Each structure stands twice: as C-alpha cells, then as structure tokens.
C-alpha cells in the first residue's frame, strides 16, 4: 500500500491502475516495467497467486477502435490498462478527479488551500517559547572546522602565500616634498645625460587667425600635398577661421603627442656642437690689393684682325711687339702701344704656338704649325739687331749640312715667296708639333709632339749649329708642355699628371712634382727658378715651391672652367691664369729670398673681356716683359691688353 500511495503522489498516470486494482483485485505483480518485455509471451504478468495473467485473445485493431469510438457512448471515459490488457471505464468521480487535476487543482474537493496563516514568528513577544529545548553546547564553544580553516589561512599568511587585504590609499596622501633634501650623490650620474630638446614653439603659421601672408596660395598648397610628409616644411596647412567658435578639433593631436613620446624613448640622441661662427671671420685676412699695386686693372686695348681663334701669343723681349698665331693660318705682328697690325705672315696652317726669342740682341720668332717649326725674322727692330739675327742664321749656313743626320728632323732654308715674308728656316718634324719654347739664352729651342706611344715627344734644337736631338729614350707619358729653367740647366717636362725636372748636364731626373690634378694644361716657371705654377683642365692652378716639397704648396680653385694658360711676370711678383670661363685672374705672388718664409699668394684682380665662343674663353695669357701689363688671346679672335 505504501508503495501504491507513493506512486499516487508522484505520478498521476499510474493513479488509475491503482484504483482499478482496488475494485477487481486483478493485480499484476511484475512491477513497474516496460510492457514490451512481455511482447512475445501469451501472458503479460502474474497475479497475486502467482498465476499467469493472459493477454486478451484478440487484440483490438484500428477498425474495432473506430467502431467503438462511433458506437460506444462510454468510449471517451474508457482507458486501456496496458499492464492487465483490459479496458476500464472510469466512473463519474474518477472523471471529475481527472478534470480537477488537469486544471491544476487539488484532488480533494474539500481541501482548503487558503487557510488563515498562523504566525509563529511575529513582532509580539510571546510569553511561552515555541521550543523549550536547551541550547546546544556547540553554540557556546568555537567551531572546530572554522578553527581549522582560520589556522590554515593564518599559516598561509605567515608563510607569505597569502597576503592580507591591502589598505587602499586614496592617493591624496601619496605626494610629499620629494626634494626636501637634495643629495648630490645622484647628480653624478647626470653627466652623460642629454636632455631631450623641447618641442619648437609655434609660429604665426599655426594661429587660428594668421595674417594673410602666412596662408598658402594654391600653388603652395598643391606643392604641400604633393610632397612626402617627411619633406614638408610645415606638418599642417595653415588655416584661417573668422571666429574662435568655428575652430574644429585638430585631428592629429593625439598623433603628435604619441610621436613625441616615441621620440623621447626611441630616438637616439647625440650631442652636436653647433658652429656659431661669424661668416666674416672665416674670410682670410689678406693684404689689400690696393697695397699690392701695380697690377693690371682695366682693359685698355683690343687687337682685332684674326678671323680664327688665337691660340698663342708672345711678346718681344723689348716689349714693343706682340706676335700672335691663329687658327686662320696667319701670324700677326702688332705694335703693343697702338694696337696696329704691322705685319701679317700667311703660314698656311693653323698655328699652334708662337715664341719670341728671349735674347734681346736678336729678333726671331719660332712658330709651330702642323709638323713644322718655322723660324721667322720679322725685321721689326733696328738694323743692328736685324743684322745680328741674320748673322746667327747665316752662321750655321757656313758650317752647313747637319753632320749627324738625325733622320727624322730635317732643317731646310726657306725660299722664294716665303723668304720674302720673313720665313728663314723650316724644321720638319715627324709628327704634329704643339709647342715651341726658347731657352733663356736664345740659342736652344724645344718642341713638343705629344704622342702617347713613342719616346719621340720632345726635341731640343740648337739654332746656331742646326742640330736636333731627342733627350729622352723612354716614353714617360703624354707630354703636355715643356719649359727651360731660366738660369740653371734644368728642363721641365709636364706630362698628364706630373711635372718632371731633368738636369740637362748630368742627364738625369732630379725631381718629380705631383700636380694633384687630372690633366695638366699649361706650366710656367718663376723667373727665380724656384717656383712653378701649372694649370689643369680640372679648373685648378697649383703652385709648387721646389724647395718645399713635390706636392703643391697651394692649390687655387679660382676658375669655374678649365685653365688654359698660366704666366709669370718677369719683374713684378705677379702671375696670371687664363680659363675657359672667359676670365683672366691676376694674382700677386711674392717670393721671399728668405728661405723660411713661404710665398704669399693673393688674388688681386679678375679681368673679364673675352667673349665665349664654342665654349672656349681665353686660350693664352702672357705678361709684358717690363710693364705690369697682361695680354690675353681668346677664342673670339681678339687679343686684349689689360693695364
């Protein structure tokens, strides 16, 4: 019964079967098991006596069920009991009970669910306690389990595994006077400290209402937008707002702060010394050009007449005549003071070089063209001189016919028309001659035939004996120009990058000067003989002091373009350089007799006048032998005199 009542409370579906059992006393004793287990047997369980309860012989099928549903008025209250396999018709009471349960009401009709509440625990103090049990002992003594827990915590705290709750400070009291005592021990570390530079302060550009000139024009704005953010001069576009109300938030504010942060901790710092020099202090203090006079200052005469570029000029030792050789195939003789062309000799080829014999007692001119060197006697002097030069030329006539047939060089007399023009001698060379130079005494003559491949580049001719010789047996590089020492028997040979000095008597090389330039163009020797200047095609002019070293004493980069010609004055401490940029620069170069004092070089004048033609400016420059005048010949077919 107990079991039944239990099931009664728990499951309403089994209520029916229990009730049914009370009426008919057919009880299945198999218990609450799935009916399917007896599917294959004829019985469905056992009754109280242990007899089998058999299934009804014929199962109702669908049709029976349907008919039953149609015909049987009790059908709706018929329930099929699966455990006994029989149909049970419910009574009215039972139906009522089912309905009540379905509605969620209590099964018992008489049960009152809303009984008045009896307050056991109320605000009123009762005279009698509800229970009169004496209090437990455990309510007086501390709990053991709690004690265990606490002791565990205490142990954990003791061991440092657990930290007691920290007292939160509100931050108000956490500041104090940190710098109350300033100790110097920390200061020591600060020597290497480089404080970060401060952010530059904003200029007028950054104003919300800048003056109009600080705003960008359209072009500036376009340029700003085109530029890479790193290249921009201003990191923002200046804007103008008519009132403070209209100024929007700056979108890059956080960015800028962030970048500053990055700079502070990521940017490598370096202490850089700022040069704060007055640029005027950098300019060297030189003697004033005024104090170094005389030197040529103005262009006073222009010699016109040539139709091609004038490659070379030379002044007679007396200083009265000027000879010039040009690409138009003529050699002209000018009177220096009047700029008149006294004489013109057609030589029939582009003249590369002219050189007046430096001996004042003769009047001869050497002219180099193609592979010939001509000796001209212009007869532009008094009779005495002309006679003496005739004598010099005829002296060898007697001891004629060069004994040593050098083979390659042929001396010959000029005849006919040429003789009338003043050409006296022809020296035929095997190759094109570029330069002729006289020795100071006027008897020897050197000619240069630049050729990279052979040792036959320089010839020295003796005029009085009509003899030629090649002093070098080996090729030492492309010879650019040569020069005789004014006093001693030295011979200067400038190759592409260096100058060699040979002793002609001992027949050996004495010195090799390194010019430190790419390609030497010209060279001049100081009349004292201890200093050499050389110009080069890479715009440099180097001054060598032979007593000091083989390196240039000074490199002058005055010209903008290739230096074509250099010259020393014979008497005054002046030298000049001519360049393709159309200028002649005159410098003052004092050389002291005292060996301890280095030469003083001061540029004193830049002379301009030549017109640039075919990218060529001034081609040659030379000084007047006695006056502080300088002649220059240019590619514009003129010769100019600066006084």
């Amino acid at each position: 019964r107990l079991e039944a009542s239990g099931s009664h409370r728990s499951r309403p579906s089994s209520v029916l079967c229990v009730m049914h059992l009370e009426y008919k006393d057919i009880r299945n004793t198999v218990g609450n098991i799935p009916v399917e287990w007896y599917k294959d047997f004829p019985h469905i369980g056992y009754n109280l006596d242990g007899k089998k309860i058999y299934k009804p012989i014929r199962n109702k099928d669908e049709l029976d069920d349907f008919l039953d549903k149609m015909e049987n008025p009790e059908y709706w209250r018929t329930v099929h009991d699966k455990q006994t396999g029989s149909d049970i018709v419910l009574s009215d009471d039972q139906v009522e009970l089912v309905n009540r349960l379905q509605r969620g009401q209590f099964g018992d009709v008489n049960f009152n669910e809303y009984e008045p509440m009896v307050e056991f625990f109320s605000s009123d103090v009762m005279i009698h306690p509800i229970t009169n049990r004496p209090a437990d002992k455990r309510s007086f003594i501390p709990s053991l389990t709690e004690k265990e827990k606490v002791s565990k915590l205490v142990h954990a705290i003791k061991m440092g595994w657990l930290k007691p709750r920290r007292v939160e400070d509100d931050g108000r009291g956490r500041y104090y006077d940190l710098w109350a005592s300033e100790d110097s021990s920390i200061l020591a570390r600060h020597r290497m400290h480089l404080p970060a530079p401060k952010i530059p302060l904003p200029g007028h550009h950054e104003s919300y209402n800048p003056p109009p000139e600080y705003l960008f024009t359209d072009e500036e704005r376009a340029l700003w937008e085109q530029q890479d953010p790193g290249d921009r001069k201003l990191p923002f576009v200046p804007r103008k707002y008519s009132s403070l109300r209209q100024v929007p938030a700056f979108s890059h504010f956080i960015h800028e702060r962030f970048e500053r942060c990055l700079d502070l901790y990521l940017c490598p710092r370096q202490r850089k010394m700022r040069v704060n020099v007055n640029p005027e202090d950098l300019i060297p203090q030189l003697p004033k050009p005024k104090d170094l006079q005389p030197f040529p200052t103005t262009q006073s005469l222009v010699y016109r007449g040539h139709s091609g570029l004038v490659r070379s000029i030379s002044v007679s030792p007396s200083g009265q005549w000027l000879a010039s050789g040009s690409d138009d195939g003529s050699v002209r003789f000018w009177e220096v003071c009047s700029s008149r062309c006294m004489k013109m000799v057609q030589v029939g080829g582009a003249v590369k070089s002219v050189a007046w014999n430096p001996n004042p007692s003769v009047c001869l001119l050497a002219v180099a063209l193609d592979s010939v060197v001509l000796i001209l006697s212009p007869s532009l002097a008094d009779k005495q001189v002309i006679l003496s030069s005739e004598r010099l030329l005829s002296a060898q006539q007697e001891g004629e016919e060069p004994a040593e047939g050098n083979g390659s060089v042929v001396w010959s007399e000029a005849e006919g028309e040429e003789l009338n023009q003043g050409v006296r001698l022809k020296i035929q060379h095997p190759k094109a001659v570029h330069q002729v130079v006289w020795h100071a005494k006027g008897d020897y003559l050197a000619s240069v035939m630049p050729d990279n491949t052979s040792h036959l580049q320089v010839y020295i001719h003796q005029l009085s004996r009509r003899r030629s010789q090649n002093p070098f047996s080996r090729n030492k590089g492309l010879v650019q120009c040569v020069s005789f020492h004014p006093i001693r028997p030295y011979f200067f040979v400038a190759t592409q990058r260096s100058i060699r000095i040979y002793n002609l008597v001992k027949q050996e090389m004495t010195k090799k000067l390194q010019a430190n330039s790419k390609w030497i163009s010209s060279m001049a020797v100081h009349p004292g003989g201890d200093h050499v200047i050389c110009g080069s095609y890479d715009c440099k002019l180097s001054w060598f002091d032979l007593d000091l070293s083989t390196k240039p004493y000074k490199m002058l980069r005055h010209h903008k373009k290739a230096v074509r010609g250099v010259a020393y004055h014979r008497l005054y401490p002046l030298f000049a350089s001519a360049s393709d940029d159309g200028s002649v620069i005159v410098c003052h170069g004092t050389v002291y007799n005292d060996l301890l004092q280095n030469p003083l070089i001061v540029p004193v004048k830049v002379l301009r006048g030549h017109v640039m033609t075919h990218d060529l400016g001034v081609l040659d420059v030379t000084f007047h032998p006695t006056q502080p005048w300088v002649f220059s010949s240019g590619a514009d077919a003129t010769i100019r005199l600066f006084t």
Partner: protein
Amino acid sequence: MGGLQKKKFERGSATNYITRNRARKKLQLSLPDFRRLCILKGIYPHEPKHKKKVNKGSTAPRTFYLLKDIRFLLHEPIVGKFREYKIFVRKLKKAYGKTEWSAVERLRENKPTYKLDHIIKERYPTFIDALRDIDDALCMCFLFSTFARTGKCHVQTIQLCKRLTVEWMNYVITSRSLRKVFLSIKGIYYQAEVMGQLITWVVPYQFSHDHPVDVDYRVMATFTELYTTLLGFVNFRLYNSLNLVYPPKLDSNAESEPKEESEDDYAMNSESYLEKLSALSASLARVVSSAEEEEAQLDHFPTEGEDMEKMEAREKELKQQEAQKKLFEGLKFYLNREVPRESLAFIIRCFGGQVSWDKSVCIGSTYEMTDETITHHIIDRPSVDKQYINRYYIQPQWVYDCVNAKVLLPVEDYFLGVTLPPHLSPFVEEKEGDYVPPEKLKIMALQRGEKTGNEQEEEEEEEEEEEEEEEQEEEEEDDNGDEEDDEEEVAEEKNLKKMEEQRSQGKSLQVKVTPGKLKVENKARLEQEEKAEEKRLAIMMMKKKEKYLYDKIMFGKKRKVREANKLAAKRKAHDDAEKAKKKKARK
C-alpha cells in the same frame, strides 16, 4: 715583436655601447617590459660617433644604448615588480581557469603595485630639473584629462590627470605666473614662468577625440604614469612654496557660497569639490592666512657703468611684468555660453580679473548676467538680442591678444560682428632681417605708448606706399643707369667694329669728333664696389673646408632673406587686392 695579438672591437667605443636586443637579454625582460623600464627610467638610445666601429664593422642599422645605462638598469627595484606582476597575471589566469572566484577576488585585492617616487628623485635630482622637464608632462596630462571613458586608458588615470591639471592651473592662477597664450589650430598654448623656468603646454580644444588606431596607448599610458607622479610632486612643492594647502582647498569664506547652489547635482561630495576647483573661480585656502602679498622690490646696490644699465633694464622689466600681472585687475567679465569657459576663466583669473558665467554652464559662477558692474561681456556670436549699455561686448580673441601685448588693446577691433585682426604668435621673436607682420609693428607701437588713430594710420600707410613707389622708381632708374652704361660700352664697341670693317675694306675713315660726355663718378659706389671685389677675392683664397662652411652659412642667410621677401611680397599683393576691392565698393 711578441705580446698578445690585439683583437678588434674588444676595447674602445665598441665596448661602451650595447644593442637593444643584447640589452634586453642582459636584463632578462620582455620587449614591452623593457620599453616600460626605459620610459620610466628615462633611458634612451645614443647615437655613437663612429657607428661602424661600434657595430663591429657592420653597417646594419641598429639602435645602441650606453652599456653604463643598461648596467644601471640592472639594479632597478622596479624590475622585480615587473616580474611580480607577471606572476600575478599567471595566478589570476589560473584562478579564472579553475573558476575559483574567491581566489580571483583575493588576488585582485593584492594586485602588485609600484611607486615611482625614487625614480622621479633620481631623474630629477633638484626641483629645478623637474620644472625644466615638465612641459611634456603637462601636455600629456592635459590631453588625458580630456579623454572620455572609452576604455583607451584607466578611468582612474583620467581622473588623476584631471585633478593634477586643475591643481596646476590653480597654482598658476594664485602665483599669477602666466605669461603668454596662443590660440593655434592645434589647441591653446600657454606659457607660464615658474621659478624662472618658462613652461609651455598645449591644451586641445574641447571636443571628443577621434581615437586613432595606429597609436599605441600602452606607451602613452606608461608615460602618463610617470608624468602624473612627477606632476603630483611638483604640485605639492609649488603649493608649499606659496603656503597653500595641498591637496588644494577652497578658501573657507568663499567656499560657503557655491555650496548652497547645487548640492543635489552631484552624487558624491568629493566629485563636486573637484568640479568646484576646476571651475577656477574661487581662491584657495592658505596654510597661514596671510594679508596682502608683499611687493617684491629690488634692493639697490651701488653699481657702476654697465652693471648700472643692466640693473635699470632689469628693474624696468620687473615693473613691466608687475604691470602685466595686474592687467585685468578691476575688470569684471561675463562669459557667454559658447566661448571656451575653462581657458578664458583661467586667463582672466591669472591676470586678476573677475569672471562669471551662466549658472547652467558650470558650477561656480559668482554673479549673474544682469549684474550692472560687468565691464566686459565675452561673446562669440554674430549678434545678440539684448545688450546692456554699460559694458563692452567683445570677442574672445581680445583677451588673448591683450595678454600677449601686455596692455589693454582698444576694444573697437574686437566688437561683436567685426572682422577680427590677425592673431599673432607671441612665441616668435623677430631678429634683424626677419619679416615682421605689420600687425606686430602696430602692437609694438601701442606698447611703446604711441597712440595712432585709425585714419592717421591709413594716411601714413598711403604715404609710405607713395614713398615706396618713389623708391622703386629710383631703383629702377639706378638700374637703368647701369644698363645705360653697359649700352654705351656696347655702342662704342659697335662703333669701333664698324670703323675696323671700314678700314679693312679700304675705305677712308670719316673723321668726326663727337663731344665727350662727362662721366660722373659716384665715389661711395666706387668704394663699395672696391670693397665687394676685395671680399670676392678674399673668398677665393679660402680653404676648402672653410669655404664649404661659409657657403652653407651664406646659403642659410640668403634663404632666410628670400623667405622674408616672399612673405612681404605676399602681404603686399594681398593688401593691394583688398584696396582694389574697397575702391570698387566705394564706387
């Protein structure tokens, strides 16, 4: 011979530097921790003089730290704290994973924290050092105090920044040390002189920030951590130096008044207190209630010559500064609701003015708009309905310009609806040869005390322009003269050529004598030319190194001049256009 072979890179600069990765390994720190440590300790990379030597022959780009710096970091107690924090995070993760909420709570309560006091003391051994470096701290704190609670950083940080900046502003007000202000398109720049140090900071305009995604807020937060500590200590010291109570308290007699108004608006008392402080309208309580401030007077020492002059100059400057401090004294301002309240209230109070605003704008307003004693009403709208007669209605720029000019500027240019004059940067100090905008010249004239009416000025301007035109003409004439000279020469040459040609053609020359012209030689000019030539020649003789330096300096100078000229030309074009427009309008 003999001896040990010297190995490369074992002495000298190679051993003084260490690369970042090696430094990190040496310190056994992760990269974020290393970064944090560098930020807090102020360790920065150094650029070695010979990079290749330091880099052991390699030219790969690397950042180098000084080995000494890294060694110094080894002993930093904060490194231990970093490790503790790492352990804490691990434990917390574990507790979360095991869903042991009580453990999580307990761990959270004991989250390891660290103090930066010793680092501050170490980085800034003296107080002046700290003040010198406080620019960045202020900028950062002001920026963070404007952040909303967006989760970009801790709310506590924002609140702390807000508190510290308010304290700072209150100090500046009380000490009256503000010197310059500048409204830029980025924000508002302020410059204060505290204990002889010029401190500049920038405050963004009050808008919500559009937080960029490519900014690492952790870096910023680390910096802010350091900066808040620094600023707190600096504030404490500054408040002490003025005998003010720190943390700041409002003056007790002034305090009672605003309290009555809006007690209920704020849930927490402390919050409302901070708001009241940040309203900047009340003065602060002092430790010792002092009477009037003593005027600082320079003692006179018997001095001679130069010192005397210097002394006088200093005295003058001091006087001027004293006058500037009292610029707005006696003036009563009222701020309309559309103007930046905090900035204006700060500036006005810094120069001794009284300021108030509408009650609904902010707590702490002291008087109503209807107050008859208000002298200036700051307003930033084109027109206003009801105007009181006995006050000026001016635009906010007036306040800023007055502060920079150090005098009260005429209010006419700043009236309601008037086109404002340009706002110039007070930080630009024009040297000789720099371009000075005409507005600056005007202000400088005002400072000197020259009062020029508008009309007069215009006349003057016109005269000036005429003069300028004349000058230009003269210049042109000069140029023409030069050209004429050249032309003459050319003509002579041509003449000569003609003659030559004629001669060469065999024609007889026409003999003709033309009267010569007297060439007037300008002595001064000749002298100048001579000097110029001398200089040119001397420059030719310069050494290569010096020449390079000289050219560089001259290039910089020329560029400066060019820029100034460009600005002047631009201004002139603009003015001409304006004038033309005006004329058209008149017609």
